[in-house]
């Protein structure tokens, strides 16, 4: 069985040959996989020992906790991969980033307007929660496509607050938006 697995921008082609061997980018690894009764996973890769907790997130995303770090891993089998390739990178229009509220809270300030250019790291929204003012920042350069939160709104966890689009995509994106 062959899978295409992504972390951040890295992509691995992982072939599960049988219970104790996998092939990654054509290189074989001896594996020994065990799941304990409490859900913890023990994996030996060429006798290198790794202990992890793996839980399913949204879509094909798996959360992997490994020596302190939490990795978001996207796993697709060949079929699913080809499909997603066909309709552009998974989820929404290409290069579009939706900024969601990480927790319930109150919008104290919205620092950007639609069509405004933002650089990675720019503050875009101030959200009050847990009695603290939290700054939401742009995850990358882009253009504000939509702002769906206003000062004074109290928002839920994961509520979409605004959308940042690719600069170069601006026109067709804008079009798309108008369509809706």
């Amino acid at each position, binding site marked *: 069985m062959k899978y295409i697995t992504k972390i951040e921008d890295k992509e691995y082609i992982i072939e599960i040959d049988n219970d104790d061997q996998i092939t990654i980018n054509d290189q074989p690894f001896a594996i020994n996989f065990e799941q304990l*009764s409490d859900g913890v996973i023990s994996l030996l890769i060429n006798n290198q020992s790794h202990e992890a907790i793996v839980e399913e997130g949204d879509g094909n995303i798996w959360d992997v906790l490994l020596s302190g770090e939490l990795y978001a891993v996207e796993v697709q089998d060949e079929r699913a991969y080809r499909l997603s390739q066909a309709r552009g990178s998974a989820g929404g229009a290409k290069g579009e980033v939706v900024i969601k509220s990480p927790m319930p809270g109150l919008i104290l300030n919205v620092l950007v307007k639609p069509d405004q250019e933002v650089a990675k790291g720019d503050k875009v929204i101030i959200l009050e929660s847990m009695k603290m003012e*939290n700054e939401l920042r742009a995850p990358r350069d882009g253009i504000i496509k939509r702002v769906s939160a206003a000062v004074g709104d109290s928002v839920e966890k994961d509520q979409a607050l605004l959308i940042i689009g690719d600069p170069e995509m601006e026109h067709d994106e804008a079009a798309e938006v108008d369509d809706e």
Partner: protein
Amino acid sequence: MNTENLHTRKFDKLLVANRGEIAMRIIRACHELGIATVAVYSDADRNAPHVRFANEAYHIGPSSASESYLRIDKLLEVAKKSGAEAIHPGYGFLAERADFAQACYDANIVFVGPPPNAIRVMGDKQTAREAVKAAGVPIVPGTEPGLSNEELLAAAEEIGFPLLVKATAGGGGKGMRPVHRREDLEDAIAAAQREAAAAFGDGTVYLEKLITHGRHIEIQVLADSHGNVIHLGERECSLQRRHQKVIEECPSFVVDEELRQRMGAVGVAAAKAVNYVSAGTIEFLMDKQKNFYFLEMNTRLQVEHPVTELVTGVDIAQEMLRIARGRKMRLTQEDVTMSGWAIECRVNAEDPYNNYLPSTGTISTIRLPTGPGVRVDTGVYPGYTVTPYYDSMISKLICYGQTRGEAVLRMRRALEEYRIMGVKTNIPFHQHMMDSHRFLTGNFDTHFVEERFSMEDREPAHELEAAILATLVAHGQSQKASQIVAPGERDTSNWKWLSRWERLRR
């Protein structure tokens, strides 16, 4: 001595007016002294360990603290109903509310903490500064509160920049703003006033000279009701984010025995200035030349008290209870010795890779580090939901070593052993800090974390392994899913439980 409105007498049942890890800490100290415990809980905390570990437990209202843990009337009612003779406030909530201490006194209940007057004086930045100033404690130059914005702007000229805008009622960095340039002052005052008003219902602010490259160093004191006051040395708490401590250690890298005794003596003087009784902490700001200035006194048990316990061998929580029972301290200043090194990492539900935004969610799995030199104080559990109702601290991980190096290496080991799933935590932040050259060489100040420390340069070490793990689990799931009978069970997010359950049926 004048410690009016303070009850100290033997008691055998105590109500813990708090939740989370500090409630657990107090319950354990009580049980270790043979004192029965009464827990209180809000809707959110029915299953919390402090409810399960206490001898008795009473529901006091909805999750919002203002309707439960902050309801003095309900707490006193439960104390009466359960026959609790004493109340321990822990930290936060009502811990530094003089009116609560007074209410306990009026209800003839022992308040495990200082007399109301000491809380009142130290609770107000201004009266605190005056009180300790009179006792010869050095303070940072600044204005008194209540000035008009015009007056503040004028005063700023005298104090000079950089300076701090601070809320009179403030604490934990809320309503506090550093200002480096004259032109930023007005905005900063506005923001501080807004935040303080929201957090404390009082927007009053004042100005204070900003000590640059300052270190936050605090002195732990113990005072009994017989006039004995001692100190347990210092804690280094310079590693902070937005004035929230994240890592504390004992002793401090920059404090030698001579300085320790000097600061300790000043701390004791500050405590005596307000006829202090119980455990307390005097916070100082120390500049590069090792001049130290009084910041504030915390009239309660401190989050970071364990590092002092490990290095001095003194159980501060137990001493606090003995003192409240009217006992003389067993220790004199001469008995207090420090040996070894302890470091505490506060494990918070927040995302270190995304501007430390709080992370809410339900914890599915926890496995705590164990073994030599590792202590974990925690109040969370599998199934616990991190909500905005309470603070985001999940646990305190404390490691001890004969040397600072040993403590750091042990902390690395413990952080790696720590497993918590369901919310994002700042464990990677702590791991990154334990690897940082600046930290290892003790070369940091209160601005280090925010200004000269970044997660950007952290390499995710195990991406390939994570990719393999996720793929194998996904593969296993799709294999399993195809075998499962009942349609309901096909819900993929449960395959793990199913496989466990299937295993059990064998």
